[in-house]
């Protein structure tokens, strides 16, 4: 089994100091306990995605995001940074949003996973998807599935009283203010900077308007 320990800032961003002092190499510290072996380790997991059950045989290091994209070919969930900094990979797991790049697929046996594909189709869009189209809440579209999954979860969080950093009064129902929505959506970066349009789209859905 490949017991190599990989880190997000491993091979491509080694400690510069190490290069200076010893002329060694980033690979050194990362090698861990690996020994020359040819066998790839595989692991079976059952993933329940968009209500469908999939049996997947995968490398145990596979993230939920890569399981969705590379094994199930559900490429709606996007890989923007692979280290939990951009939100493009946001999916719903048992109704709560998570960064699917920060969790391993094998940890999600029997969980109910919803991706952007499960929310709606081009012919039958989820209200949030339709609102994003109507309010032009995207340009390149790459962060969009994550924004939409996040937005759907944000409205649920507010409705069920989950507080945020900007919630003023924890004892009362949370107001559906723009400040609340912006704060809660801030884990989803949009480089096209469609932010004001995304907020419009979410408010429209929250207000029940078309």
């Amino acid at each position, binding site marked *: 089994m490949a017991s190599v320990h990989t880190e997000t800032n491993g091979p491509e961003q080694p400690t*510069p100091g190490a290069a200076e002092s010893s002329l060694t190499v980033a690979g050194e510290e990362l090698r861990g306990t690996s020994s020359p072996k040819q066998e790839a380790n595989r692991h079976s997991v059952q993933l329940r995605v968009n209500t469908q059950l999939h049996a997947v045989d995968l490398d145990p290091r596979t993230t939920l995001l890569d399981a969705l994209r590379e094994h199930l070919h559900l490429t709606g969930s996007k890989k923007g940074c692979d*280290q939990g900094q951009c939100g493009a990979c946001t999916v719903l797991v048992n109704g709560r949003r998570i960064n699917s790049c920060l969790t391993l697929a094998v940890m999600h046996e029997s969980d109910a996973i919803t991706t952007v594909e499960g929310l709606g189709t081009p012919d039958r869009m989820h209200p949030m998807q339709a609102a994003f189209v109507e309010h032009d809440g995207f340009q*390149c579209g790459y962060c969009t599935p994550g924004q939409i999954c996040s937005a759907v979860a944000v409205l649920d969080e507010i409705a069920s009283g989950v507080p945020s950093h900007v919630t003023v009064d924890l004892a009362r129902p949370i107001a559906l203010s723009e400040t609340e929505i912006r704060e809660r959506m*801030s884990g989803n970066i949009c480089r096209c900077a469609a932010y004001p349009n995304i907020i419009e789209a979410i408010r429209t859905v929250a207000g029940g308007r078309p």
Partner: protein
Amino acid sequence: MIGAGINRIDGPLKVTGRAVYSYERQDAGQPFYGFIRGAAIGKGKIAAIDTAEAESAPGVRLVLTHRNAPKQGAFVNKPTIFDRPHPQLTTDRIEYFGEPVAFVVADTFEQARAAAALVNLTYGREDGAFDLANHADQAEPQATLSIGLPGETRFGDLEAAMSAGPVTIDQTYTTPYHFSQPMEPHACLADWRDDHLTVYLATQTVAQNRIALAETLGLAADQVTVDAAFVGGGFGSKLYLHAEAVLAALAARKLANPVKVALTRRQVFTLTGHRPEMIHRVRLAATLDGQLTGLGHDVNLQAAVAEPWIEQAATVARSLYAAPNRLTRHSITNLDLKAAEAVRGPGELPGLLAFETAMDELAYALDIDPVELRLKNDTAIDPELGVPLNGRRLADCLREGAKRFGWDRRPKTPGSRREGDHLVGYGMAAGIRMHFQGPTGAIVRIEPDGRVIVRSDTPDIGTGTYTIAAQIAAESLGIGVDQVTVQLAHSDFPPSAGAGGSWGASNLSIALDRACQQIRNRIAEAAGLGATPNDILADVGRWFPEGVEATGQTIGQADDPNFKNYSQNTYGAAFAEVAVDIATGEVRLRRMTGVFAAGRIVNAKTARSQLMGGMIWGVSSALHEAAHVDPRYGNWVNGDLAEYLMPVHADIPAIETVLLDDYDEHANHLGIKGVGELGVCGTGAAVSNAVFNATGIRVRDFPITLSKLLSGLPPMRTAA
């Protein structure tokens, strides 16, 4: 149909996750996965490299290094820029931190990534020059900029004007390294079969990347197919051919199996280009009533001499204001960093950030309203080219913006408006963006059953190109948008100048409209009519049983008299209100208004969105973005999305974005210009000037972060 703010026709695909980007394509069957290992030094050489352990790791198919990489075409510093070959793994020399030293291909992504870490490297590190400030004295003046404009322009005697005064500004501003950082990392899926390479590539320029790849790999252009049906943003960084495409192609050829590779986010920092850091000196001289008598802008910017990108940052002043004495100059300082590249608003973003901040300093020095100062120095004739400034609506933008924003309520004295523990200020700036035109083709086909198909290699990188192409064809043919099928970004389609430089919409629209007029002429001829009535299109099968098609072409600006007889630009004015927390120095943007004149707008909704996004880039340049180099090692110390600060939802309030009703008959026969970069032009300076108005502190080293304000802020009020 032109002008209508219809929804994006590719919108339903994008919001439901059905738009398939390059790395996600299934067309070629199951690919192998590639992972790039980057150098851990900024300058020097590979002293030893051992790939044995990586090669014996599970699933590994190939480890490429400089020792076994196939011979490739040499780099050529072509003035056409985007079609330059970029060979990889060619030597043991390391020219910049993170440069690819090995490429590992395996059955799975996890295996490739793990094995890449098993390549053992020993480096011979050499000292390098990594910081601009300490090497600024080595700057070399440049005669010509990368886009072909002169590096230096000089009129009258600026020194004399500065001596004469009576009011002058002579200040130095620094703008930092910026990265495009589109949300989709640079990625390529390469498929070799039957001596032909197909790449599904995240690119802004299809025809140019095809040539670049062909020359790198020693192929004829027609042996390479490039497909970029969906691209997750570019902002300049996908104009160029980068390592991932070359390495994927080399490996796919060697392994006779498709190979795909995406840069990690950290590699997007090391392996794609940055906007160079710049030191700007801006000089202004004016009469007491605010008439400019002299203006000067000197820029010294970082470059890698092997492939210098000489960004046109000092050109912003050339067409913006009248003044008899003028001097604009560019010089470059060679550092051991990766070659810089175009990042959104090349020239204008850093140039106007500095220049329009200086104009604000002049307004305060003169005690003249900053809007008034700009109106006073407006000009109908390009002060340097001596030809009319077509579509010059700067004054309209300024007046409309001031009215909408409520500029008359601005605090006249800096630092004078306090709301609790916040200082509140207003700022404004003017914007200008050169309008370009590049050779672009389009083909229109009408099937016998009347269906219309439009094709061009121009990609839609989020720019709305699919949608506006349908709108142009619908308008030209007198049909509905839903009758048009748009196919873009494939190298089998007519080549274009690409998506970048704010010219995709106008380049494509002109070519497309011409193709549509051609097809109407052909139908009229076949039908024996003087003209083609709209309703005849459904019947083209009567005369053309195989369908009918026609091509249209937009010529490059060098061949277009419009670009000799006029100085082509778009214009804007931005107004911002900020609140600065006196305890923390935190600057919050409260509201912003931008008013723009960019010729005829093809789609009011997508154009507004693009300008709004550009304005947010402006905000970011004033308050957030800067990439930092470690001056010891030449690496990007904040090279990821947590440390390289870009605006998030919480940073951005509602933003008013207004497009003036415009039509520029001297731009082209459709009156269209472009909006892709205009939103970033001057918007950063509006925020910077608002911070000064709020605090009385002038920060000239961008971005304006907390620490640069803290020591100058007033004490907090003690609780009563």
